[in-house]
């Protein structure tokens, strides 16, 4: 619902990591239905949320994202049987880790958007954009020197434990 376009001083950057089968298709549906939402989101397509390495989220924040959205199929609907289930477990631990490094968890949103939920996609993106806009730009993290060798670099006990749990 944006009848009157408002002028904002701050336009947050939102990155969305989505799976092909559900959320990407849901976003497509929002398009074919000509729904409207703020243009702040950039979509990265993955075969499955199971492919999404938490490190990408860190990377996105480091690259200047002010908010990150991770979205896939509803539980039980995974195109790849159980990928989203593994992803869910992984992210549960990852959230703790993010909190530990000082990221405000309000900047990171997980959701389920199915291929039929164009409206939900719009809602989720709009809400996150507004939420992050209110929070202002994400600066803390940009300065935080992540190791250049990003892959597998964060092998914290928490992650270790998560891997073992899977």
């Amino acid at each position, binding site marked *: 619902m944006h009848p009157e*376009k408002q002028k904002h001083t701050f336009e947050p*950057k939102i*990155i969305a990591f989505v799976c*092909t089968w559900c959320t*990407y*298709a849901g*976003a*497509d*549906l*929002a*398009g*074919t239905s*000509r*729904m*409207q*939402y703020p*243009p702040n989101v*950039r*979509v*990265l*397509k*993955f*075969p*499955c949320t*199971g*492919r*999404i*390495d*938490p490190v*990408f989220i860190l*990377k*996105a924040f480091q*690259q*200047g*994202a002010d908010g990150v959205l991770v979205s896939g199929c509803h539980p039980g609907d995974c*195109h*790849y*049987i*159980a*990928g989203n289930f*593994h*992803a869910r477990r*992984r992210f549960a631990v990852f959230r703790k880790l993010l909190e530990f490094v000082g990221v405000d968890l309000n900047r990171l949103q997980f959701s389920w958007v199915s291929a039929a939920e164009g409206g939900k996609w*719009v809602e989720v993106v709009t809400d996150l954009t507004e939420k992050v806009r209110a929070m202002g730009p994400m600066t803390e993290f940009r300065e935080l020197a992540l190791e250049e060798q*990003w*892959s*597998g670099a964060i*092998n914290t006990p928490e*992650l*270790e434990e998560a*891997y073992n749990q*899977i």
Partner: protein
Amino acid sequence: MSRIGVFICHCGENISRTVDVERVAREVGLLPGVAFSTDYKYMCSDPGQNLLKKAIQEQKLSHVVVAACSPRMHERTFRKAVEAAGLNPFLCEMANIREHCSWVHENKEEATVKAVEIVGMMVERVKKNRVLPTITVPVTKRSLVIGGGIAGIQAALDIADAGHEVILVEREPSIGGHMAQLSETFPTLDCSQCIMTPKMVDVANHPKIRLYTYSEIELVEGYIGNFQVTIRKKARSVDEDKCTGCGVCMEKCPIRKIPNKFDCNLGMRPAIYVPFPQAVPNTPVIDRENCTKFKTGKCGLCQKVCGPGAVDYEQEDRLIVEPVGAIVVATGFDLYNITEKPKGSMIKGYGEFGHGKIPDVIDGMTFERLASASGPTGGKILRPSDGKEPKQIVFIQCIGSRAREKGISYCSKVCCMYTAKHTMLYHHKVHDGQAYVFFMDARTPGKAYDEFWRRSIEEEEAVYIRGMVSRLYQKGDKIVVMGSDIAVGVQVEIEADMVVLATAVQPQAGADALAQKLGISYDKYNFYSEAHAKLRPVECATAGIYLAGACQGPKDIPDTVSQASAAAAKVMTLFAKDKLEREPIVARVREAGCVGCFACKKVCAYGAVEEKEIRDRQGNLIKVVAYVNPGVCGGCGTCQATCPSKCVELDGYTDEQIVAMIEAL
């Protein structure tokens, strides 16, 4: 240095209305690595595709980005075009500036900026794209069917009729499964044997079907199109080629009092036996546990009387290896047994029903045998304890099923209908008898099903009582049934002569062990899991393995046969090709880095990760690493996100590609 070509589509006006496509082309053209950029009215049209092909050749492009609609629309189209121009199709990516941009924004400035960024991201990504070979695997056009019930029989006949060889493996001495035990079948009440036995004979006579009865699956290796299956053919002690099926041995065998499992232990059989007269094959088997020869070394009568000399006490188990391209699993079901609690199972017993130790409390399948014309009583309904005809018979539904407390929460789907059938059969056979049914709901969705149930009440005058039974006990030669009628709100007591419990449908014993051999998944009850409940209900997640019948969930015959034919059709679809081609979006392990933790193996739902031994030249084992079988991998990438040492990579979605996109922000 890459030479990337970028093609911006107007989509008529769908994109260009809100996105300044020319500006996008201009700005993107300035990105490092972009050698060519242009815009065009309809990229997917023939002229559009030709423009693309011509540019690739003339500009010597190394990579292509088409900024247009969703890749879900036209990725295939453009990849084909790219391939036609001589480039590897996986060097082409699409940037979605329609569904994700022009259609969802109104402000032209904002939309254009966003479009530039989207295209920019894809440009960075495509730079990291690698040439991916199309994966092809050969297909062995023979199939294995496990389980010779109606599901296995139907699937085998369908596949064989299409001209492909079928190997049918059945654990029991004869095929037929549970349907061969049934008397008459709902909803039409036709005689089960009459419609079943011709199909069994067809199997035996089909030139394309090789039947292994009294056999089990020992080992399954390989993957779709290329399985190697080892079958254990248990020693029958009778040479199938020599035996004529004359039956003299069975007549002469002095051991006669072994309860016949096929007749639910109501009838007796000798130590050398066929489970039932219409058995296929009609070759007896010696039950070594009960045969005097095997127990004491004496007897040997059957060998003496056998004209063709078929009896062979020395026969041993044989292992046979068969290459097949597809597998249909059709191992069926068994009934919840209230008399004994299976070891280690979550099932609780029914002490309140006497743990099934009251002789005239039987299960539904036992009733089928009593009602069957070829059964132990010749089709007369007689109670097991004293052979008297029961004048008051009580049926109780949902025993074991829908009883979380007892361990099973699902509905067994067939018992409402077969109980209705049982009341009819009973009333047809015992004219002065009365049937009562205790039930919670009648679940009768299906063509002509509810009418069938209503008939049992309205025409056959079965008395249905909505409410369950708390306890059964023997009183003299009666069984006291303590029930309730919740509609009236009173307790009901019936002194019955016989009680039939509709016990739950469960997977066959050993279903989990077989699943582990096959590498397919199963639920907590051991029913096999289909790949998708609605859209891929006959396929396993493991490619090349299909499901048919009650092994996947409780089913009646029409559902079983439909699924069996569907599984057969899936097999034939697979066999319609000589080679399998698939998207090369599969995971690959960098062996050098792999530490062999097999975290990847644990998360892979497709069972695609195998263990591979790395040896030096002398053949000493250096380490065990993961290997992803490209024929099996579904391409989800879960392994990659899981691998702690980051050495398994999903082609098409490598870390490099993704990070390139993130960095392009």
